[in-house]
């Protein structure tokens, strides 16, 4: 690699005294003194969370309130700090969920480990895990910071989308049965 030596411009006499520069600096800080502060009075004031913000990972349900997660464990696989633990189970046949075969039995995210990277959301084929706008998480014990499925659904809520995967599957199967 070639070394390029940059020549510094020699300081003028005035600059050598530093005084004008100090005055310029003082001017800047003085100007700041009269600017409105940018501090938000948290927790009374909350920031506007922009679209795509990567807050706490949460689990979401579909528009019909069914859990979207199918326990594919890809998030568990991709998670860099290994914060996710999933235990899966096979769903019983029949009933409302006839077309859902697999679901998470337990779904735990260790928020102490989570680095909010969003890989889990990116990798999720069912769009079941979302980093939403919750950003402040606290607890009194390590155990309390391991969020279980219930807590994650509580945080995530329902995300209305137009996938209706299970309904479509059901409709397709019924259409096939008619033949």
């Amino acid at each position, binding site marked *: 690699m070639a070394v390029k030596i940059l020549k510094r411009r020699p300081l003028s006499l005035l600059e050598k005294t530093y005084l004008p520069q100090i005055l310029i600096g003082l001017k800047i800080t003085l100007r700041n003194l009269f600017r409105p502060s940018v501090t938000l009075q948290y927790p009374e004031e909350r920031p506007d969370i922009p679209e795509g913000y990567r807050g706490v990972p949460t689990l979401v349900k579909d528009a019909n309130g069914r859990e979207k997660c199918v326990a594919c464990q890809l998030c568990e696989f991709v998670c860099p700090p290994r914060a996710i633990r999933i235990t899966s189970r096979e769903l019983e046949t029949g009933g409302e969920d006839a077309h859902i075969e697999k679901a998470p039995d337990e779904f735990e995210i260790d928020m102490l480990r989570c680095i909010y990277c969003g890989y889990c959301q990116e990798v999720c084929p*069912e769009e079941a895990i979302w980093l939403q706008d919750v950003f402040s998480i606290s607890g009194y014990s390590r155990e309390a910071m391991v969020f279980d499925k219930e807590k994650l659904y509580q945080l995530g809520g329902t995300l209305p989308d137009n996938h209706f995967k299970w309904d479509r599957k059901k409709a397709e199967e019924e259409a096939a049965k008619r033949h």
Partner: protein
Amino acid sequence: MSAGKVTDGRIDVFIDGEKVRCPPGTNLIDLVEGMGKEIPHYCYHPKLSVSGNCRMCLVELGTPAMDRETGKPVLDEDGAPKIMYFPNPVIACATRLTSGMRVRTQSAKVRECREAVLEFLLINHPLDCPICDQAGECLLQEFATDYGRGYSRFIEKKVVKPKRTVLGPRVMLDDERCILCSRCVRFCQEVVEDDVLGFVDRGTYTTLTCYPGKQLENNYSLNTVDICPVGALTSRDFRFRMRVWFLKETPSICTESSVGVNTLVGSREGKVYRITPRRNDGVNDTWMSDSGRALYKRIEDENRLIDFRVNRLPVRPEDALSEALRRLQGDKVAFVGSGQSSVEEHFLFNCLSRAAGSVLNCLVSRTREGDGFLISNDANPNVRGALCLGFIDTLPEANLTGLAEKINRGEVDAVVVHNEDLTTAGIGRSLLEKVEVIYLGSHGNGASETASVVIPGLTVFEKSGTFINQQFRLQKFLQAVPGPPGVLDDLVTISRLLNLLGKDEGRLATPAAVWAVLSRRLKCFEGISFDTLPETGALLDGSAFRSLPFCEGPSLHFEPETGTVEARA
């Protein structure tokens, strides 16, 4: 030109321009696989007949042109044999190589064929990968990354088929995922001869099904799951329990019988999730029994021993060992080994018995009727290990009458038992109470209940070692999961006892250390070391024991008279 000329019974063929020598009639897919390359395929399986229906293995094939009149090869201008390529691609799996054949496995046309076949396979394949148990070891996924186009041109509705068909007590079928390769059908017909699977309906509506009124319930049904290239057949035991990419696969040996089926133990974070067969063409090909796959459940059995106990009270390990030592120092000690112990444990146990001046060494036999395939009559995986090491010199018996007599006569006052239940081996509780029992084993039983010293041990999944199977094949198994906390490896326990007895054998706590001694001391193990033992095992000379009336009948690669047989055609 050497091309086309037959020398030493082998022929020259040219794969992508590379000259390869092989016996005539070699299967092209096998040959290419041996070269370290791959011809993608779904329906072909090396241990099944060729059906040639997936069309994934299409290659371009050329043969030297023959003059019809003279029967001589036609030559080019420059004297090389003229190669006639078939106008249509041919399937590699049905191609038996003949002299001078030229194969293109990577040409643009071949690639186009594969892309087309893959696209056809995928149009009706459901997007189940997130929940499919095959994901991660699915040939469809693998080849889709190689030959898939990344998007679908198919905008129509996929064919809907049943998703949860119960084929048998252990196998579940997802019909939508099935690519109709017929491996499972052929396996049932050809390998286990339990012809229960077949296709119904036609075209893309073809569905795999069991014959009405029958079930896929033979003891080898889970092999269909293994050979299914996609996730159509799934094991009901493993189904949806763990994604395969998390599993660490450790080579192991099935302890179900003396066949010594080679296995892979899939575990994650110290928990075993499944056992699958490992290919060994001299033992089990690519198969294993369903019952052998369930053996991992013994790890978490409720009568698993995890405490060191003296007189039924938990103690520290060193106290248990010193208590055991005190009883070993008497001169009326008998040793009951186990046919399930590894070679290394037999060796150390034998050393211990000699050091303690054993009055009697015996082994408990465990026979039942085998199936002539991969389950032999002997349920002990390593009786031959005990024989080779000289722990015993006769075959084990079901009833330890000799030991019972000696106890009755008062010639034995302490018995060291490794993993065996003496109460079911002809020595009743009343008799056992006359002696001090030192029980060393992984699971509790009648013997451990009456034992004065109980030392917990490990299961085959938690330790490493070797077994000698019915063919006198020395096979290695490795530790897949850690044992319960605090439980010592049996090798550690026995070698500590040995050292405590004053027989300083050095640290023999690992199989490798034991083998370093073994290979020097015993002639039949000469030159063998644990680390370099091949994955497929090593055949030992068992001729010294040929006169013994072993109980095994013929099985897949075993004939009682000769030991091994060549693979069945």
